[in-house]
């Protein structure tokens, strides 16, 4: 049963890792704005265009 000592250690280390990750996310401001990212993720990734002088009309999004 002594293996349980090891398991407890492992589980605590895991839990502490997650706590530290939480602190880091908090510091980076992940919890400051709970709404905008939900909209942002739906935007199309535009390929970065090199020339902007294309006399293009509105793209059709139909």
């Amino acid at each position: 049963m002594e293996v349980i000592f090891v398991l407890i250690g492992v589980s605590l280390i895991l839990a502490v890792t997650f706590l530290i990750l939480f602190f880091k996310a908090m510091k980076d401001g992940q919890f400051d704005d709970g709404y905008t990212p939900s909209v942002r993720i739906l935007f199309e990734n535009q390929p970065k265009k090199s020339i902007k002088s294309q006399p293009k009309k509105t793209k059709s999004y139909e």
Partner: protein
Amino acid sequence: MSQSKPSTLLSKCYHCGEDCQEGVVAFDDKNFCCQGCRLVYEVLSQNDLCEYYALEPTPGKTQKNQSRLKNRFDYLDDPEVVNQLIDFRNEQESHITFHIPLIHCASCIWLLENLFQINSAIVSSRVDFLKKKVQVKFLHQKISLKEVVTLLSTLGYEPRIHLSDLGQKPKNSVDRKTLTKLGVAGFAFGNMMLFSMPEYFSEAKLLGEGFKGLFDYLNVLLSLPVVFYAASDYYISAWNAVKQRKINMDVPIVLGIFAFFLYSLWEIFLQGNAGYMDSLGGLIFFLLLGKVYQQKTFSSLEFDRDYKAYFPIAVTRQRQNREEVIPLSKLEVGDVILVRDEELIPADALLLSGQASIDYSFVTGEEIPVPKQKGELIYAGGRQKGDAILLTVQKSPSQSYLTDLWNNETFEKPNKKLLEPLANRISGVFTWTVLTIAVLAFFYWFGKDLSIAVKAFTTVLIVACPCALSMSTPFTLGNTLRIFGKSKFYLKNASVIERLALVDTVVFDKTGTLTDPANAQITYSGEPLSEESKSILKALVERSTHPLSNRINHWLGSISSASLKNVREIKGKGLIGEYQFQEFKLGSGELVQMENQDTPEVGNLVYFSVEGVLIGYFHIQSGLRSSAPEMVRDLSGNYGLHILSGDHCHEQASLKKRLEKDVNFNFNQSPKDKLDYVHQLNTEGKTTLMVGDGLNDAGALQESQVGIAVTDQVSHFSPASDAILDASSFSRIPNFLSFAQSSRTIIKLSFGLSFLYNIVGLSLAVQGLLSPVLCAILMPASSISVVLFTTLATNLMGMKKGLIHLNKS
């Protein structure tokens, strides 16, 4: 999808979606309502950013009323101002956060985050949608702050920069702290539960003695951050209360935490028992959860705005025939300032030259401009409509007629006479009762068994620790706040709800609050208007954005307009146009050359003449909001009603007819009078609710127990207040009041519920029977059931009062 295509008869603007009333500006196969909208489209299409229009149909806002003055951002060249505005600067980059009230849809986010595609000197930009803020990082060697702001305003997203923003640094660490504490408490609570499980199921013995000891010591270790870090706010709050010889909700909580912690230490280290550490972790975790839930804020709204938020940051000063833009703080008495169209007058000043036509809508709520003569004193807070005027400053901005209000002692008090919250009053009684029971139990067992006596004493404190009790308030109020917010009634914080529930007297401001400028009463007198003259009038008023023109336009209804030639607007006077070689004039008496002008006591007169011959005139008065009489009737049964007005008293008869009889009317009230009136009511022992809108109500809003600012656009101007109400929800004030009362009742009921749990727990505790297992079950069970009860009950009441709708269609 072809939802953005115009389909109705009146074509809709491709940019802003408004009807093109003044003719269509066609460009690139699209219709626009004005040049401003077209310009925005042009900039976007040149930069290949037309996805803006694909994300949401007609995402823009009309550009019609945008100020187009080139030099209005000149003050951003002043390095002192720039330094106060930016958040961060290094050798290359500057970071700045703008407040842009116009942010309203996904397209806005997309466009504002793609600024770098328009100008490569912008590194990146990031939108916070709820706060309506955007942080822009730019290379300040390639682009100046002024250019960034100009770019934003060309796109239709003009940032709002105010005097009160200067020197203010963003602060968002408060909320983060509570969340971090919640994280720590949750982490410790989860692990402690895990280590306590074997004990509860008698598995620890099977594993052997070594394990049991290990589990207990681990629990002690895990409890340390909870007791010394996560719970620290409660110690501070309780200590502050005790220092003032008061007992608030946090005092019994802190007593409980200490009893928990010390008794568990004693049990674990001296008795070799399991202790109550897991329940302690759970208690603090749930308490913090309630706190976070209650911390709902309407962070895009500003409740504490003072006059500084209204005033521009900079003014144009004339000195030795040179114009210079200086920060407002450098303005001195005697300076000559130039105020252009749509600019705010920052200080009480004398009119030197020019045609002044001042719109005092911030101040009084009445938006029709008042003409001023040369030499007249113009109060700060007015907005010039028309050509530029020259003024001499008479008083510094901080001492003008209006801002004088802020020097009143009412504004000195940091926290207005807060009513003692219900929970605090109960907890006083509660704490003494629990202490008495604990002491009685101790002495009862003292003679028989000392260890049971100690156990009974501490477990009484532990089990009585008002976990459920103290959670009922934050959860009920937090949910109430949310429901109010959905109905467009935004409260500054949760404590306003309890004060709202106790209100017995309601004071209304009349102008702009009970009356609605858009709901004007128009009477026409003179020769009857033929269809032809109506269509001529329509053609005239359609060219103007003046509020009176809009009202006449509204009054005329949807008739087709005649085609006029040479239509021109003379700012502050009226409109002139030609139709079949005749000159038509619509405007003030001065414009139509009336000899004996009789200015009406109320409202405004607009004259209509052909070739210099007067045909008739319109008499325009602002009317009551359509919902106002009914709402006043609803309130009159239960509340004392008072109406304050800055106007003269001749409207009293007509108002009285339409409103209830037992309403107290007071006319000719200056801002200071309003404040004193509310103060008088307060000293009579009334609990007052003030409903107002303009800066002239600011004093009364501050003095009353609850001040509600009514506004047509919540993100726009409103004076400092406890709550901001969208004008569209104005008729619901009676519902809001009664819902606030219900939520107070719900708090009381949930107190009852948690007392039941306490009685069960206490009866076990005084017998010395409370075990860690029972505690670990009782504690979360009571908390969760109280939370469920309050949430369900508030939602149910919200539905009953018509504030929540099940189908959100």
